[in-house]
């Protein structure tokens, strides 16, 4: 356990400089603009290093893409225009959030479908077990008296 803590500490210690490496300096007029930039580059995916967004990646292509985002922001482009410009060049792959359209509707709807489906299955199981317990016949008079005798410990019959 202590070993694990040491390893964890090392991981955090060394990950600091690695992340700081990829930040270049861009000037923004307002804080809001900078946040918009950060949000955009966090949502765009690097085509070269596929499991990173262009904010984290230090591949040359990611730097080019960040430059392009910055340039377009300076030219008053909207978020959609910027994302479209990159999608036109690199394909839909670069969007971490795929657009909702006919091809992707199943993808977007799947969580809801899974939840509703699971709910229906559970509801079905509960409903069926309730129905079964209602349908079971009541004990006959003879069985009832036998059961009472058994419970009070007076049963001496061995036939079953």
């Amino acid at each position, binding site marked *: 356990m202590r070993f694990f803590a040491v390893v964890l500490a090392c991981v955090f210690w060394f990950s600091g400089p690695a992340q700081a490496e990829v930040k270049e300096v861009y000037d923004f007029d307002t804080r809001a603009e900078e946040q918009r930039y950060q949000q955009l580059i966090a949502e765009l995916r690097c*085509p070269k290093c596929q499991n990173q967004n262009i904010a984290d990646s230090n591949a*040359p*292509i990611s730097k080019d893409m960040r430059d392009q985002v910055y340039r377009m922001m300076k030219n008053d482009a909207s978020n959609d225009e910027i994302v479209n410009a990159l999608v*036109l*060049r690199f394909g839909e792959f670069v969007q971490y959030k795929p657009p909702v359209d006919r091809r992707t509707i199943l993808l977007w709807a799947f969580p809801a479908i899974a939840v509703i489906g699971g709910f229906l299955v559970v509801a079905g199981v509960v409903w069926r077990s309730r129905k079964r317990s209602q349908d079971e016949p009541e004990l006959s008079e003879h069985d009832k008296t036998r059961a009472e005798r058994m419970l009070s410990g007076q049963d001496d019959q061995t036939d079953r």
Partner: protein
Amino acid sequence: MKRLFMFLPLVVAVAIGIFLFTGLGKDPTELESALIGKSVPEFSLQALVDPDQTLGTSVFKGQVSLLNVWAEWCPSCWDEHEYLMHLANDKGVRIVGLNYKDTREKAFSFLNRLGNPYETIIFDPQGSLGFDLGVYGAPETYVIDAEGVVRFRHVGVVNQRVWEEELLPIINQAKGNS
């Protein structure tokens, strides 16, 4: 009916298995170009060999060509170069080069050592045409038809297998249409 329900998990497992199995052989790092079926983006760049010559999309007009994106700093470009030489010299394939984010000096030393399979070479030190094409890793090789429309992109080394299985069929198709 109940019996059939017992097989439902099996059916689901088989379906998921088939779905996942089809994905096994695919190379996830190879993305289809967003430009397939579209014209090569407009550009105006110097020729590598002659700085006074300006090249544009007209270099692709009239003939089916390969556009090969290369650079001296790219190790795989060294690997594939011999095969490109073979394609240009023995098979008569028209190859247009795009020298990507390189310097003239390094590009020339590369060509002097390995030979020049390119009919023309576009010099793109800033990577601007590369960016418009969606180049994300050299080497990349595009099939461009006689109208200057991108038909196919291969990311990675061109070798005999890639040529025979991927590039040649598309080149033949592009030639047949025009």
